[in-house]
């Protein structure tokens, strides 16, 4: 089950705190997965998810009851991720263990991975993912990891369908090339 019973957001919209708790319990793991993939580190991801739920709670009176909850939630979450990403890009200067800051990740540069760290496939994928332009990364994650339709992604991002298809295609092309390099280097 990827979508919550529509009666739950309706109850939460009317101020039922138990219903809001059900929403947080239901969506937290999925929201954290998206935010973690977008932000590249756990702390920022948790901050983005928490902020998103606070905003959802604040904005519930404006949520149309006949609308689907998932795209609305992910629109708010994606906005928070974008805001925090741009803030991180401006302010982050320290490289934490295991992370590649976006500021130094060049789209054209080959990926350097220190084998001593023993990075596994998932880490390699995340490092490569972080080299994508944010809008491509966002479209790729929403389409292929969160399994949303292009119509839903258009509602979330505000971008047109053809632009989104192009972003996803370019993301896939770049990932394919760079992950092939990684596999070649690792001899897999």
């Amino acid at each position, binding site marked *: 089950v990827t979508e919550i019973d529509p009666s739950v957001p309706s109850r939460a919209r009317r101020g039922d705190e138990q219903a809001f708790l059900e929403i947080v319990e239901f969506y*937290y*793991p999925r929201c*954290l997965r998206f935010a973690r993939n977008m932000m590249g580190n756990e702390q920022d991801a948790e901050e983005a*998810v928490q902020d998103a739920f606070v905003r959802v709670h*604040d904005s519930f009176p404006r949520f149309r009851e006949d609308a689907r909850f998932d795209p609305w939630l992910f629109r708010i979450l994606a906005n928070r991720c974008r805001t925090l990403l741009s803030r991180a890009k401006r302010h982050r200067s320290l490289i934490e263990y295991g992370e590649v800051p976006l500021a130094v990740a060049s789209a054209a540069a080959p990926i350097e991975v220190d084998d001593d760290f023993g990075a596994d496939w998932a880490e390699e994928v*995340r490092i490569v*993912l972080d080299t994508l332009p944010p809008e491509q990364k966002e479209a790729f994650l929403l389409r292929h*990891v969160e399994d949303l339709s292009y119509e839903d992604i258009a509602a979330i991002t505000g971008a047109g369908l053809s632009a989104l298809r192009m972003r996803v295609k370019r993301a896939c092309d770049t990932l394919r090339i760079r992950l092939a390099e990684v596999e070649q280097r690792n001899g897999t």
Partner: protein
Amino acid sequence: MELERDETIERAVQALAVMPPRDAQAVSRVMAAVRANGVSRAPRPSRLALVLEWVRQPSLSVASAGALAAAALVLGFFSRGAFGKAGAETGTRSALEGQPTGEYPVPAGAIIPASNSNEVRAVPVPLVFEARNAKTVVVVGDFNGWDESKTPMVRYGTDGPWTATVLAKPGRHVYAFLVDGTTLVADPRAPRAKDLDYGGDASVLMVTPP
């Protein structure tokens, strides 16, 4: 499968699609933040309400309240009534004319408590504490006068973490959790306080202005 989703992309998607486990503490933190946000957005009392509350204080005698009310009436009369037209004619405007609608105007300088304009406002801070076997947990700290009755924590579910939201002014605060009314425990998530005067473990809370 879509055209662009070949074996490499499929493997990448599988790596990225691993779902984080359910996390009761994280959910609890979110709910605490939501509640704290509700506190910070609570409507501020109107000036009239502040005046009425001040007048109702037990320390204020009926006679002095009456005198203040009379003074307010006189000031109100002068500022809005008797010289209103004269002010308009000379091009001056009463400061009260700029008041937003929906509130009763209050005579300037009369009886508004001195606190509201420049007072540093307290910030809601959510706290989470794990104590599975505890029957009660209370937050005590300098922000609530170390009063054991002021900030009881609420348990998330039947055996989840304890949560509470405290209101603390920007600055450095010292606090602790009082478990079952007897044991003072420092917050394992926060730096330990060294200059404690309460007689037990405690933590430091740094609150930044909103």
